[in-house]
C-alpha cells in the first residue's frame, strides 16, 4: 500500500521515515547505520531539490494524508542531512550522552 503521493512512488521504500515527531525522526537516525542514512540521502535529496515548487503548492491547511507523509519523510531527510553532510556519524560529535528532547511541536 502506498503512503506517498503517486509522483513520489520511488520514495516508498523509505516510507518508514514518514514520522510525525522530530523525536522519533532523530531516534531513527541514531538507530541507523551510516550506509542506511547515506542511501536514504542519496535517493531522497535530489527529489527534494527538484520538488520545491511542488512543496510550495501544498497548503498545510487541509493537507492530504499522502502529502503529510511526504512532509514527514522530507523532515527526516533534514535530520539525516547532518550525519551525511557534516558529521560522518549518526550522532552529533562531542554530544556524548546529552539529549535535547522535543516537548512541544506543531502538527504539521
Amino acid at each position, binding site marked *: 500500500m502506498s503512503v506517498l503521493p503517486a509522483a513520489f512512488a520511488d520514495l516508498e521504500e523509505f516510507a518508514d521515515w514518514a514520522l510525525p515527531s*522530530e523525536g522519533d525522526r*532523530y531516534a531513527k537516525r541514531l538507530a541507523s547505520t551510516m550506509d542506511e542514512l547515506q542511501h536514504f540521502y542519496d535517493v531522497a*535529496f535530489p527529489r*527534494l*531539490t527538484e520538488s*520545491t515548487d511542488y*512543496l*510550495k*503548492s*501544498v*497548503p*498545510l*491547511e487541509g*493537507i492530504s494524508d499522502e*502529502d503529510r507523509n*511526504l*512532509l514527514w519523510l*522530507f*523532515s527526516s*531527510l*533534514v*535530520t539525516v*542531512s*547532518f550525519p551525511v*553532510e*557534516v*558529521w560522518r556519524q549518526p550522532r*552529533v*560529535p*562531542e*554530544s*556524548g*550522552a*546529552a*539529549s*535535547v*528532547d*522535543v*516537548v*512541544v*511541536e*506543531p502538527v*504539521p
Partner: protein
Amino acid sequence: MAKFAKPADGSWTEHFGLDTAPVSYADSIDPAHYEVEREAIFKKTWLNVGRMEQLPRTGAYFTRELDVAGTSVVVVRDSAGTPRAFHNVCRHRGNKLVWQDYPREETSGVCRQFTCKYHGWRYDLEGALTFVQQQKEFFDLDMSEFGLVPVRCEVWAGFVFVNLDDDAQPLVDYMGQMGADIADYPFEKFTQVHKYRAEVGSNWKLFIDAFMEFYHAPVLHAKQAVDEESRKLQEVGFEALWYDVDGDHGMVSSWGGMAPPKDENMVKPIERVLRSGLFGVWDAPDIGIEELPPGLNPAGHKAWGIDSFLFFPNFMILVWKPNWYLTYHYWPTGEGSHIFEGTLYFVPPTNAYERLQQELAVVTFKEYALQDGNTLEATQSMITSGAVDTFPLCDQEVMLRHLHTVARRYVDDHVKATAPESPVSISAAS
C-alpha cells in the same frame, strides 16, 4: 585589530564598571551557595513561566513546576480574561490541586473550575473556594478564608511572569528600559512553536554563560560550517556589535550574515535547497512592522543578525534578523544541574516547503544545543575539582562577568540581611 567599535573607555567590561580580574566560579559549585540563591534570587525575582498564547481563553490553564523556588504554580485565565497564578495546593489537606497521571509533570488544559482529586473541594477561576464535600462535618469552616493562595502574576509583551515575593516591584519596572525598548516587537505573531527540554549537568549560570558569548562559536561549532568558511571564522574570531547593561539585565548584539549567505557555497547542500539554517529562514516573513523597536540592533549596523537579551535571572530572548525569535530558560535543580528549555517561535508556515524551511532551523538549533550542553558537563566536572579556582574572562565575555556579579550581589545582600549575628559561611563564593 578591532573590527567593530568599542566604547571610548577602551573596553566593554570597564565601560559597565566591572572589574577585569580573573573570576571565581565558586558560585557554581557550592551547595550552600546554591541554597542561598534559591532564597535570594528565585523566590524574589520575576520568573517567566509562559506566554499569553498558552492561555487563549477564559479557563485555559497551565502548571509550572518551580523546584528551584520549592513550589508548583497553576496559571489560569480568569473570568475577566486576566491571567492569575496560585500555589498549586488544595487548602484542605495539601494535595497538589492540578496534575494528570504523574504529580511531578506539568500539564495544561481548559476548565470551568478546579476540583481537587482527593476530596472534591472546588475553586473558581479567581481562586475562591466554592464547594466543600460534606461541609457540615467541618467545624465553623468559613469558606471565604480558604481560597487558593495567590502568587503575583503579571504580563510583559505577552510573556507571563510570576513572582513569589509579594513585595516585589511591578514587572514592567523590573524589565526596565531594556525591556521597554523591545516590548513593541510583535511577539504575538509568532504562534508556530517548537519547544525543547534538556537535563544538563551544570550549574544554571554556566549555560547562560555559553549563550551570552559567541567567542566559542567559531571553535566549538567549527564543523557546522563548510571547511573553508570554518577556517575563516576561526581566523577572524568573534567580536560583538554591541553590549548593553540595564540594572540586572544584559544583552549582546551580534552580526549574522548567513541568512541568506553572501555566497551560497558557504553553506551546506540542505541549506541551499531549503534556504534556511541556524540563522533562520532566509526569506523573512512579513511581521507587519515598518522598523525595529529601538532596543533591537542598537549599533544600527547593516551586518546585524541577532540580539540576545538576558532578563535576570534565567530568561533569555533571542531576536533574529529574518523575523523569528527564540527563548531560553534555565531552571536549576541543584548546584551542578538544571533543566534547560529552548523554545523557537515562527510565523505559521502556509505550505509544506515553508514548514520544511522552519524544520531545518529547528533541527540546526538542536544540533548546536547538543554540543553546547555536553561541553558544559565537562566544564562543571572540572571546576568542581577545585584544581583551578579563578578564570580570566575576556572582553567578549563581559555578559558572563555581569551575570555572576549580579547573582553574587543578590546572595551577599541576602546573607547580610538575614543573618547579621552569625553569617552563613559562604566565604568561598563571595
